[in-house]
């Protein structure tokens, strides 16, 4: 295990990048997911269709392909993104539809009568969604949202194939430098992932229980 403590700075560098990608992507993709979910229930047909198409395309595309697209197609079109920015864009494009679907299933769990009552007192579409539907959808939406964030945590590793130094990149570099201690190196990588994902899972469990009590 000495290989872990001896290389803590490198691990922490990778961990920092992974955490950074995770946070920035969540902060951008979550509001984007709300917008996509709102488009999918909006009264305007063209918004519904474009949101549905976007969701279906991105949800059914491997994340690596999104990265490849950015790395090879965008430069041909004359645009070149910084590697980290590119990773954030790819992860955001890919993750937003998953957030949107989690939010949409939560919205669907709210009885239609709630939205009808909101409209009947004169609330507009946005007010109805923000004041009546979403606050009730949140209860059933938090656990699936956390699952999306956990998946995103692991998905950040794809960025290491595209010149971003994540936890996995730290693991790769240490493994090739310490061929006799590969297992310890990889366990170290896993531990750092778990440091992120286990609290998230715990939070989802806690939230589910709390809601079960107050409902």
């Amino acid at each position, binding site marked *: 295990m000495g290989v872990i403590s001896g290389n803590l700075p490198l691990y922490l560098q990778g961990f920092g990048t992974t955490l950074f990608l995770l946070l920035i992507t969540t902060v951008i993709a979550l509001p984007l997911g709300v917008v996509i979910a709102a488009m999918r229930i909006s009264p305007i047909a063209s918004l519904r269709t474009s949101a549905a198409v976007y969701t279906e395309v991105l949800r059914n595309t491997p994340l690596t392909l999104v990265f490849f697209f950015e790395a090879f197609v965008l430069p041909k079109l004359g645009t070149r993104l910084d590697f980290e920015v590119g990773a954030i864009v790819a992860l955001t494009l890919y993750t937003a539809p998953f957030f949107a679907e989690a939010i949409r299933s939560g919205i669907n769990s709210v009885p239609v009568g709630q939205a009808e*009552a909101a*409209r009947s007192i*004169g*609330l507009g579409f946005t007010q109805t969604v923000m*004041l009546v539907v979403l606050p009730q959808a949140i209860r059933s939406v938090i656990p699936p949202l956390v699952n999306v964030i956990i998946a995103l945590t692991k998905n950040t590793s794809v960025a290491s194939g595209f010149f971003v130094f994540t936890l996995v990149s730290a693991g790769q570099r240490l493994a090739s430098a310490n061929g006799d201690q590969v297992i310890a190196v990889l366990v170290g990588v896993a531990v750092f992932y778990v440091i992120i994902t286990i609290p998230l899972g715990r939070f989802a469990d806690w939230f589910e229980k709390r809601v079960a009590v107050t409902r």
Partner: protein
Amino acid sequence: MGQPAQTDSLLVIERVNKHFGALHVLKEVSLRVAPGEVVVVIGPSGSGKSTLCRAINRLETIDDGTITIDGAEIPSEGAGLATLRADVGMVFQSFNLFAHLTVLENVTLGPIKVRKLSKAAAEERALVLLNRVGVANQAQKHPAQLSGGQQQRVAIARALAMEPKLMLFDEPTSALDPEMINEVLDVMIGLAKDGMTMIVVTHEMGFARKAAHRVVFMADGEIVEDTTPSEFFDRPNSPRAKEFLSKILTG
């Protein structure tokens, strides 16, 4: 109850048609309601009563015809539509109180967000209304903690808080246990006495006789009779109304 003074109609429905797919649910429906008038809509299941109510505040679109409230035709979308809905109170069979809000918040949400009242002013008025419907002592509870009758009275207060020109009730007592029906009907009778314009879908004959100026009988998407409560219940004209009444009377 005597007919209110005949003035310009508050609600004018003219030759409205509505289809659900191939099903013709409203057929050339026309109806005028004067300010202060209480109209009971009655008819067999599936005759289009709910659809008519929902069309009046455009929870349901119509295929053709016009619906005019206080001289203005219902806009099809946007801010104008929201304003119209704010002017038309709706009480649902299943109450539809906002489950995540307290009773008080249910009643103040519209006044604060739509009428732009201050929170304090909205709460003050809400308490007056909750008092009027007899549930002021439940103001801090959530809807799920109330009985059905209490929830429906809160729903009436929520609609009244918008100071609507017209109130729609779609079978407001059908989901209630029998012992709670009267507490809701009493509130509605009080409203009628105070001059509120009301359209009430209900099979409660007692309410119709006590509070309604007119009874509109619908069958198969058409208005078949439009007359006074005593005429309708004692001397129905059409065979369909006779058949319907004999069914609900023999239960």
